[in-house]
C-alpha cells in the first residue's frame, strides 16, 4: 500500500510538472514584453541606438532572453532568479496580478473559500438524495416510478448547466420569487451571526439547487446502473434464497458491492463540478468564487493570475484522480493495489 501510494505520488508530481511546463509554454505564446513596457516611456528621450542598447540590457537583466526551460525553472523555483534568490511557485510566490495589483496568494483566499462552501454543500445534498433514489430505482426497476425518474434524469444530464441555470432563474427567481437571481448577500446589509448565515444561504440556494439538479441526474443513473448490475448477480439470488431480509440483501450485500463504480464517478463528478461546473454557475449567478476569478482573469488578460489558477485546477484534478484510486481500497477491501 505504501509503495503504491509513493508510486502514485511520484507519478502525480511528474505529471504536474509536465502539465505546468506545457502551461508555461502556452502562456509564453502571448506576446507580452515587460522590458518593452518599462522602456516604452523612454523611447522619445533617448537616441534610437542608445534606447535599443538599454532595452537589450534590461531584457538581459530581467532574464527574458534565456531559454524557455530556464525561465520555467525560475518561475517554478528550481533555479535562482535573476536577483540570485529562489523565488518561484515552490517558495510560495504564485505571481502578481496586474488587475488586482496584489500578490495572487492574497487574492484567491476568499473566492476559494466561497467555491469550497458551494461545492461541499451541493455535493452533500446531491449524495444525500441521489444514493437512496438510485437504489430505489434499481430495486423498482422498470416500474412507473423508475421510468418517470429515468426520463427526468435523461433531461437533467443532457441539458447544459447554463441552460438549467437560466431555466431555474426563470422559475425560482422570476416566476416564484423565492430566491434572488444573483449575488452573494443582500446589498448594503449589515447582518451578523445567524442572520448573516441565513442571508448567505438564501443567496446560495439557487446556485446549489442548479448544481444539485445537474449532479442528481448523472449520479442517479450511475447508482442505478451499478445497483442493477449487482442485483443481477448470483450471490444476491443466494442471499434471497436463504431467506435474508430484503433490506439486508439490498444494503448489506448489494450496495456495498455497487459502491465501487459509484465512488469512481463521484470523484470524477466532483472534479468536474469544481472546475467546469462552478465556472458556469459562478458566472451566471455572479458569485465571487474561483471560477469567476479565473474567468475575469482571462477576460482582463491578467495572465499571471490565469497561470496560477490553472496550476491550482491541475493540482485539484490530479489529487482527485489519486483519491479516486485510493477510495477503491477504502470501499472494497478485495482490491489489492500493492502488488
Amino acid at each position, binding site marked *: 500500500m505504501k509503495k503504491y501510494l509513493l508510486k502514485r505520488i511520484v507519478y502525480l508530481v511528474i505529471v504536474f510538472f509536465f502539465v505546468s511546463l506545457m502551461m508555461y509554454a502556452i502562456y509564453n505564446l502571448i506576446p507580452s514584453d515587460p522590458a518593452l513596457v518599462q522602456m516604452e516611456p523612454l523611447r522619445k528621450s533617448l537616441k534610437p541606438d542608445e534606447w535599443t542598447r538599454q532595452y537589450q540590457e534590461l531584457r538581459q537583466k530581467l532574464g527574458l532572453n534565456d531559454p524557455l526551460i530556464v525561465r520555467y525553472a525560475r518561475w517554478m523555483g528550481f533555479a535562482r532568479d535573476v536577483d540570485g534568490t529562489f523565488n518561484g511557485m515552490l517558495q510560495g510566490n504564485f505571481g502578481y496580478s496586474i488587475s488586482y495589483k496584489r500578490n495572487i496568494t492574497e487574492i484567491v483566499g476568499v473566492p476559494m473559500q466561497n467555491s469550497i462552501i458551494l461545492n461541499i454543500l451541493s455535493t452533500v445534498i446531491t449524495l444525500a438524495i441521489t444514493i437512496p433514489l438510485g437504489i430505489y430505482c434499481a430495486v423498482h426497476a422498470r416500474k412507473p416510478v423508475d421510468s418517470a425518474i429515468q426520463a427526468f434524469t435523461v433531461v437533467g*444530464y443532457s441539458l447544459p448547466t447554463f441552460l438549467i441555470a*437560466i431555466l431555474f432563474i426563470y422559475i425560482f427567481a422570476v416566476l416564484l420569487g423565492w430566491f434572488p437571481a444573483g449575488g452573494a448577500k443582500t446589498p448594503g446589509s449589515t447582518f451578523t451571526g445567524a442572520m448573516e448565515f441565513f442571508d448567505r444561504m438564501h443567496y446560495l440556494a439557487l446556485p446549489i439547487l442548479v448544481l444539485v439538479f445537474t449532479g442528481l441526474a448523472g449520479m442517479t443513473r450511475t447508482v442505478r446502473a451499478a445497483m442493477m448490475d449487482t442485483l443481477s448477480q448470483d450471490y444476491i439470488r443466494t442471499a434471497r434464497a436463504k431467506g435474508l431480509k430484503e433490506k439486508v440483501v439490498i444494503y448489506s450485500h448489494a450496495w456495498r458491492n455497487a459502491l465501487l463504480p459509484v465512488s469512481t464517478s463521484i470523484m470524477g463528478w466532483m472534479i468536474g463540478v469544481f472546475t467546469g461546473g462552478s465556472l*458556469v454557475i459562478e458566472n451566471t449567478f455572479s458569485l465571487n468564487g474561483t471560477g469567476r476569478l479565473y474567468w475575469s482573469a482571462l477576460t482582463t488578460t491578467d495572465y499571471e493570475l490565469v497561470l496560477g489558477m490553472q496550476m491550482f485546477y491541475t493540482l485539484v484534478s490530479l489529487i482527485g484522480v489519486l483519491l479516486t484510486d485510493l477510495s477503491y481500497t477504502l470501499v472494497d477491501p478485495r482490491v489489492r493495489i500493492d502488488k
Partner: protein
Amino acid sequence: MDNSKKNGSSEKKEFFLTRWVRRLFFPNKEMDIYTEEQMQSPVRVVIRNFFSKPIAVTALIIFILIAIFVFVAPNFVTLDLGDQDSTLVYVSPGYSMLKYPKELEKNGVADIAVGNNYSVGADQLGNIYVWGKSKLTKVIDLSEIPEEVKNAKIVKVAAGADHVLALDDRGTVYAWGNNRLGQTRLPDELKANNRSHDVAIKEIYASNQFSVVVTEDGRAFTWGNDNLAQIEYDAERLDGHVVSAAVTNFTYVLLLDDGSVVNPCFTAKFTVQKIPEEAQSGVKAIVGTTNTVAATKEDGTLFVWGAPTKGENDIPTLTAPIKEVGGGRYHLTALLEDGSVVSWGGNRYKQAEVPADVGDVEKLFVGSFQNYAVDKDGNIRTWGLKGFLFGTDGLGRDVFARLVNGGKMTMTIGALSVVIEMIIGIILGGVAGYFGGVVDMLIMRIAEIVSSMPFIPFAMILSAVMGTRVSIEQRMYIIMVILGILSWPGLCRLVRAQMFAQREMEYVVAAKALGVKESKIIFSHIIPNVMSVCLVSITLAFGTSMLTEASLSYLGFGVPLPTPTWGNMLDNAKNSIVIQNYWWNWVFVGAIFGVACICINLIGDGLRDALDPKANGR
C-alpha cells in the same frame, strides 16, 4: 432458408417507401437464435435492436430533422452579421406589425402613422386604432388609448418611438405613451383644458422621444427629450410663417410660407440642418427619414439632403410628377400623380419593394420599415416589415435567423471536433492496443495526462491565447481542434481495450500468417470490427462537444460575436432582466438546443442497449 427467400421475394413487390417504413418501424419477426446466427451479421442485429426501441428511433428522427433544419434553412434565412438596428431592439415574436384592424379599412382611412414597430390609425368616423408591437414595457402599452382620445373625433395621428400624438377636429392635440423623458408633456398653451381658442393645431409630428406641432396661425411648438434631440425653436424669427415640418431622428426642419426650408434651431448640430441651395425656395412639402430630409418642389421634382446611409438619395427616374412622399427609417416612398408608387433606400426588410399590383393609390402612409397605401376604393395595401418569427435580440437582430445559422455553426463544430477526436483516439488506441508494451505505456500515460487536465479551464486558456490574433473563421477551427485534442483519451482507452480482445482472434492470426502489413491489420482488419462498439462513444462525444462548445461560447471563450452559435446566443440571456422580460431570447434557442442534446443522449443510450448482448435477453 426457404422462409427467408419467400420474404425476400415478397419484399420486392412492395413499394420501396412502404418497405422502408415497415422495416424502420416494424422490424422482421423474431427469429430463433440459430436462424438468426445463420442469417444476420452482428451489425444487422445491432441495427435491428436499435430500431426496435421506439424512444431511440423517435430521438433519431427528431435529431435528423433538427440537423436537416439547421443545415438547409441557412440557405434561405440569410444572416447579415453587421445587421443591427436600435429601433428593433427586443421586438417580441409575431407578425403583427402590418395587421391593421378591419374596421379601419371599412370605415375609410383618415390617417395612419408608423412608430417603432407599431402603427396608429384614425378612420373617417374619428375612431383611433393601435396595432403592432405597442407594448413597450410591462406597464406602458400604447394601445391603452386614454378615454378623452376615444371620445374625441380624431383626424390626424403621429407616432414616435415610444409615444403617440392624436389631433381632433377642433385642433386639440393629445399625447400618451412613455413619459419618462417628457415625450407627452405638452406645453401649457396646448393643453386641452387651458388652450385658448385661437391656438388651433394643424399638423402634428412625433419622432424619437420628441414632438413637433404646427398651428393654424403659423407657429410651431416642440417638446420632448432635448438632451437626445436638438429641438430648439427660434420663435422670434419664425412665428407666423411656419407651414409644416419634417422630423428626423434627432432634429427637425420647418417649411415656411415663402416656400423655403429653414433650420429652426439656433445652431446646426446635424447635417440635415444645413439647408442646401435648392431648398431655399419653391418647396411644396418636406418629409424626414432617420438622417435625411426630402423636399418636393412646386414642379413635382424631389431632392434629398442630410446624411444618407442606405441610399436614400438614390432617387430613381420618376415617370410622373410627385404628389406626395413618405419617409421611413431608411427608405422613401413616393406617390406619383398617375397613382403609381415608387420606393427606394434601405431595403433590408423589403420595405422599398413596392408590390407589382399596387396602383391607383390615393393616400400613402410611410414610416419606420412599413408602408400603407390606400387605393381609390379604400382598400389598404401594405408592404415592408411584418415582424419577426422569434422576435429580436438586444441589438435588434432577428433571433430566428441567428438560431438557424447558430445551429449550423454549433453542429458543425460538434461534428468536426468529433472527427478530430476519432482520428486521434482510434489511431493512438489502435496502436497502443495492438503493440502493447512500451508503446502502450507511453500512449496511455499521455492519455492520462490529457484527461487529468481540467477540461473547461484548459480549453478557455487555449482559446484565449490562440484566438486573439486570428479571424473569426480561424478561431472556429481552433475551437474544434481544442475540443478534439482534449477529448480523445476516452475513445482511445475504449479502442485499446477492444484491440486487446481482438488481436488474439483467429482472423488476426490468419492475417499475420499471411504476412499482411501491421498497419493494414490494425486499420482495415480490426478497427472495422470494433467500430460498432465505438459508435456509442462517438455519438455521446458529439453531444458532449456541442455542449462544451456551447459552454465555452456561453463563457465568452468560444466562437466570438457577432457570429451566432447556440451557446453565445444564450450568453446574451445571462441576466435576469432578459430572462424575465425578453423570454424569446432564450426560450427558443434553449428549447432546440435542449431537444438536440436530449436526442443525442437517447440515441447513444439506444445504441448502447442495442450493442449489449445481455440486453437481448439471452
